[in-house]
């Protein structure tokens, strides 16, 4: 195209003259400029553009009007078409000359002399003498929202704690809110849970593990003396246990769509992320240290930009940014949008995971339901296009994702593969299917590495991708935050920085109405089975409304006030009377509130995949309570799909198993694990026969039952009655009733005969107890 040099010269000239970038307003227009516009520009616009870009057009293209000065300034979906004084950067010129994919008019470019007129006109500041015209409304902002549907964008208001006439009942302000709601629905609270039920509930909710029979004895004894003190002591002990972070960290890893491999890239390749586990350990440690939530988020978004005083702190901050690099990526091959696919994942996990708003939908067009525009999206995209996301070697398969650098850690010990380690998975050449050697990694052997993000070389605003296509570029959108979400107004983004530091500030600013509510709701959900907002990742127009809006605001404000301490909030909730109710509803709630929206009783919950496995191991005595070290795949940059089953047995807690997308460990896969492709706020709880089959036939259950039976039989002098008692106590934390004792003894006797093995019969009985609902549900 011969036009380039010409525009460049004019562009240079415009800069040299220091022309203002604001369009020339009508008052300042000289007669010559007016004449030029009327002779050259207006006729060309009318003839070539107005058919689709005027207020009276039958159908308006790209939400762009070109028939008034204001409309020209505002622009359409692709941003403003004209940057006054700067034809080289003006979309209109690219478009009219068919230099970009956004070629207009669609059939053929305008003749070069006409384009030259436009260039000249823009260079002179785009003087526009036309009368003011109409503007298209931003339909997303002006859309008729159902009343209250944008509730989450209103700042939380410190609510008045409701008064009650049942003065003895509430223990915490929380209880006043729930009680008022119950009363308004004609309900009253169920009885308090028994200490046995309460202890089990607390252990599972705070650590994901069952209490031991000895824990229970101790608790019952102190509960007799002082129930409140006994409970708060246990709660404090559990909050201080390293298992707390392993359990609550697991909740966060769902939100963070954490996994140790990429998942199917769309072409059946699934590269490992051998260093992802460092992020897992960081999350566990953060929960155990009760890192304030605002700090926790800041580290994950901009840890690389934070000051540090020790190498350990530096490393931790860098590892935290793994949050932004863990996403599942579609193949790079034949995919022009790859870089923006990576950004889309980052925006999605921040939108749904931290803010409870799906911003990612606005990648291709203004959000259809929520007040988020494509401009908002690309304003955020600029933070990440100005940064380098580092996922590593991606299985040495460039067609999936080009290899990137990684953070090199300073304080972490070097990590070498075992001496006898031999990689068994070979790489195949994608075109021939023949094996090729695995290249040596670019770092010295044993270098400790972490996934993450760092500043890019040349931070810049991101250009709007029209309809989400990276080749169809609109105007650059200044880096910033979604307009409809209130926040601090004084944050400006330095031109030479990515802006992630400011993004973290904006998200964690107390004026942001979403961040604190979203995490308070998640915490509530993990303790009650259902959030105050039932759609934890969607506080938008299509999400559910809060059942207890004042309570949610109370919790959110309380969290911020207590320096974003998640442990403090959890403590407050579990010590409430509401949390400690029995799971047995009163008759009226049984009839009127089967879903337990109004919290007049406690919702029974099934053990999730990880606590179920961990409980079986703990009861059999085989759980290794120490943190699992690293990962099975820490020395393997390979494609998982070629590796078959890479999992190996482990007795560590489930969080330390190898979470490979599309190839999860079979020990936990049967119980509704998410796909980890997106931020997951709430796991499905399905009941399918596959879960029964797991309990009948999986090696884990069979082996641990056998081990438990061996333990029972160790005490040779014990009677069978005594053994049944012991077994019930270990598995169900209670004594069998006479009927159960009778059936159990009968079972062992008959089965011993059939199996010709006493031990196998006891193992079968132990397995039968692991299979029960009593073991698998928490009242």
């Amino acid at each position, binding site marked *: 195209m011969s036009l380039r040099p010409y525009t460049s010269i004019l562009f240079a000239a415009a800069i040299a003259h220091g022309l203002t970038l604001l369009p020339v307003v009508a008052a300042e227009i000289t007669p010559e400029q007016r004449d030029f516009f009327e002779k050259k520009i207006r006729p060309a616009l009318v003839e070539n553009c107005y058919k689709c870009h005027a207020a009276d057009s039958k159908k308006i293209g790209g939400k762009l009007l070109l028939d008034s000065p204001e409309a020209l300034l505002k622009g359409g979906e692709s941003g403003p078409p004209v940057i006054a004084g700067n034809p080289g950067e003006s979309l209109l010129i690219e478009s009219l000359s068919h230099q970009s994919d956004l070629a207009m008019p669609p059939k053929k470019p305008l003749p070069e002399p006409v384009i030259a007129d436009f260039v000249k006109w823009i260079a002179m500041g785009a003087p526009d003498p036309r009368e003011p015209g109409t503007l298209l409304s931003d339909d997303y902002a002006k859309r008729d929202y159902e009343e209250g549907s944008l509730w989450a964008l209103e700042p939380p208001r410190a609510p008045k704690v409701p008064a009650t006439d049942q003065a003895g009942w509430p223990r915490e302000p929380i209880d006043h809110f729930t009680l008022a709601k119950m009363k308004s629905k004609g309900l009253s609270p169920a009885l308090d849970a028994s200490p046995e039920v309460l202890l089990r509930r607390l252990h599972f909710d705070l650590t994901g593990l069952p209490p031991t029979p000895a824990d229970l004895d101790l608790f019952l004894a102190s509960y007799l003396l002082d129930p409140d003190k006994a409970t708060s002591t246990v709660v404090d002990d559990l909050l201080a246990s390293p298992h707390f972070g392993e359990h609550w960290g697991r909740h966060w890893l769902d939100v963070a769509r954490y996994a140790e491999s990429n998942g199917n890239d769309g072409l059946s390749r699934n590269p490992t992320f051998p260093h992802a586990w460092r992020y897992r350990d960081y999350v566990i440690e953060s929960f155990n240290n009760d890192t304030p939530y605002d700090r926790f988020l800041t580290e994950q978004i901009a840890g690389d930009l934070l000051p540090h005083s020790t190498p350990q702190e530096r490393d931790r901050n860098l590892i935290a940014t793994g949050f932004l690099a863990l996403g599942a990526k579609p193949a790079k091959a034949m995919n022009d949008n790859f870089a923006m696919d990576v950004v889309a994942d980052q925006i999605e996990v921040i939108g749904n995971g931290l803010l409870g708003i799906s911003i990612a939908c606005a990648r291709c067009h203004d959000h259809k339901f929520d007040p988020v525009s494509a401009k908002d999206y690309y304003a955020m995209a600029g933070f990440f296009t100005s940064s380098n996301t580092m996922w590593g070697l991606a299985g040495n398969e460039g067609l999936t994702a080009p290899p990137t650098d990684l953070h090199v850690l300073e304080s972490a010990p070097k990590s070498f593969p075992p001496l006898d380690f031999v990689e068994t998975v070979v790489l195949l050449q994608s075109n021939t299917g023949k094996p090729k050697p695995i290249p040596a990694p670019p770092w010295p052997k044993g270098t400790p590495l972490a996934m993450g993000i760092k500043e890019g070389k040349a931070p810049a605003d991101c250009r709007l991708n029209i309809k989400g296509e990276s080749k169809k570029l609109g105007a650059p959108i200044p880096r910033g935050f979604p307009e409809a979400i209130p926040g601090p107004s004084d944050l400006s983004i330095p031109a030479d920085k990515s802006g992630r530091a400011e993004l973290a500030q904006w998200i964690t600013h107390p004026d942001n109405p979403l961040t604190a509510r979203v995490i308070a709701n998640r915490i509530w959900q993990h303790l009650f089975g259902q959030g105050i907002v039932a759609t934890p990742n969607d506080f938008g127009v299509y999400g559910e409304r809060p059942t207890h809006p004042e309570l949610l605001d109370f919790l959110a404000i309380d969290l911020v006030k207590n320096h974003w301490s998640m442990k403090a909030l959890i403590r407050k909730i579990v010590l409430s009377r509401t949390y400690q109710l029995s799971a047995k*509803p009163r008759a009226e709630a049984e009839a009127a509130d089967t879903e337990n929206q109004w919290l007049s009783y406690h919702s029974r919950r099934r053990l999730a995949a990880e606590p179920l496995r961990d409980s079986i191991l703990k009861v059999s005595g085989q759980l290794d309570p120490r943190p699992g070290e690293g990962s099975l795949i820490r020395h393997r940059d390979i494609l998982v799909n070629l590796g078959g089953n890479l999992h190996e047995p482990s007795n560590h807690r489930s969080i330390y198993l190898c979470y490979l997308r599309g190839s999860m460990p079979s020990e936990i*896969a049967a119980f509704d694990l998410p796909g980890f492709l997106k931020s997951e706020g709430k796991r*499905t709880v399905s*009941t*399918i*026969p*596959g879960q029964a089959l797991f309990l009948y036939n999986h090696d884990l259950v069979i082996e641990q039952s056998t081990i438990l039976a061996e333990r029972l039989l160790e005490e040779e002098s014990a009677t069978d009655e005594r053994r049944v008692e012991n077994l019930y106590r270990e598995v169900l934390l209670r004594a069998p009733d006479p009927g159960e004792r009778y059936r159990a003894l009968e079972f062992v006797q008959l*089965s011993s005969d059939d199996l010709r093995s006493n031990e196998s019969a006891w193992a079968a009985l132990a397995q039968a107890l692991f299979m029960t609902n009593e073991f698998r549900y928490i009242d």
Partner: protein
Amino acid sequence: MTTFSRRDILRQSAFGFGSLAFSAIANESGAIPRLRARAKRVIFLCMSGGPAQLDTFDYKPQTGKKPHPGSVYEFSQHGESGLHISELMPETAKHADKLCLLNGMHADTGIHAQSFLQLHTGDRLRERPSLGSWINYGLGSENENLPGFISLNTSKPSVYSSSFLPSIHNGTPIGVNGENMNTASINNIQSGHLPLAVKRRQLDFTQFMNHNHRSARPHDSKLESVIESMELGFKMQMTAPGLLDLSTESKATLERYRVGMQSGPVGTCKSTDFGRQCLLARRFAEAGVRFIEVNHGSWDQHKNHRRDLEANCAATDAPIGALLEDLDQRGLLEDTLVVWGGEFGRPGLTPGNGKDETGHNAKGFTFWLAGGGVKGGYVHGATDGTGARAVDGQVHFRDLHATILHLMGLPANDLKFQHAGREHRLTGPEGGKVAHEIFA
């Protein structure tokens, strides 16, 4: 009309249930009127991604001097009916006289995930019971040793979920998230550590405990669902391994289904995988599974439209032909409804303009049905001259759902379930229109 909620049924039942109790939806009490059933089971060949209808089943030749979007592959007429079918589907075309083409399909959105969910559940945004779950809920099982709803090579749980319907109607997945379908099985289906009699005694003990536990918690019906699903899982151990084992099939059969055969390098799902799914579908149908979904994808060919479309057709055509042939020969086709289609279609390419890229079109696309009481060699509905939108015989997903339920003997708009304070039905608040024109 009275409908029964899960809780009502529970209240009426003193102790536990037979497998049919949840499903029979109080048929005995007559709460749900039943129609004459033309079909007993459904095999849904779900082509995810949006197959290009104009190059497969909706023939759009060029009409004027100016090239316009339309079919870019050759079509010819097949069978006595003379249906136009594309050259990409030679094996399916042999069964033209069994096919009932719905060329006037339309849906609400061109967003994959939403339209895919709506195709399965009637709702674009929330998790709702899937079509297969509704059918099992309405009719109960034909074989209480197997799940009534099996989803082969499935994607995400939301499309085979029973949602608020009793969990026993949840789809059982075989092969998830691109698991190798050649070996995909039902996980943990067998173990040798206990003989069957002891396993049964063991489960009896567990269920004795579960019933005691349950009777102290009478309001909690999900505990009952677990008890039910434990029984089903137990019975599956005895029936499913045999069904999943294809070694009893003849070499000729395996070849017809392309099981074990190599195919080209393009596309993520190969003939051998899809063939195994089709063959398993036939075996499950024979065994009395009500609803079998066979998934294939992705048909979302944007760029390289021709290359990817050819690969998808090559992978699926012969196995589908073999399935139709087998069902017919075994007398199963008359009461088995076969359904083919995806979440939407695609706009046509324009011959000679050099472009090889398409998008999504939810305004007009094609499904086909076969067997199960529908007319064969029949075309219902049409799109305009360029295939851009349905202009005649329009069938929305809710109409398709209504039609399928009707063929199964269920009055679509009266199959309801009380949940969270209101009545729900598959066809949504609008209700679905049954396409009576297509019934044989």
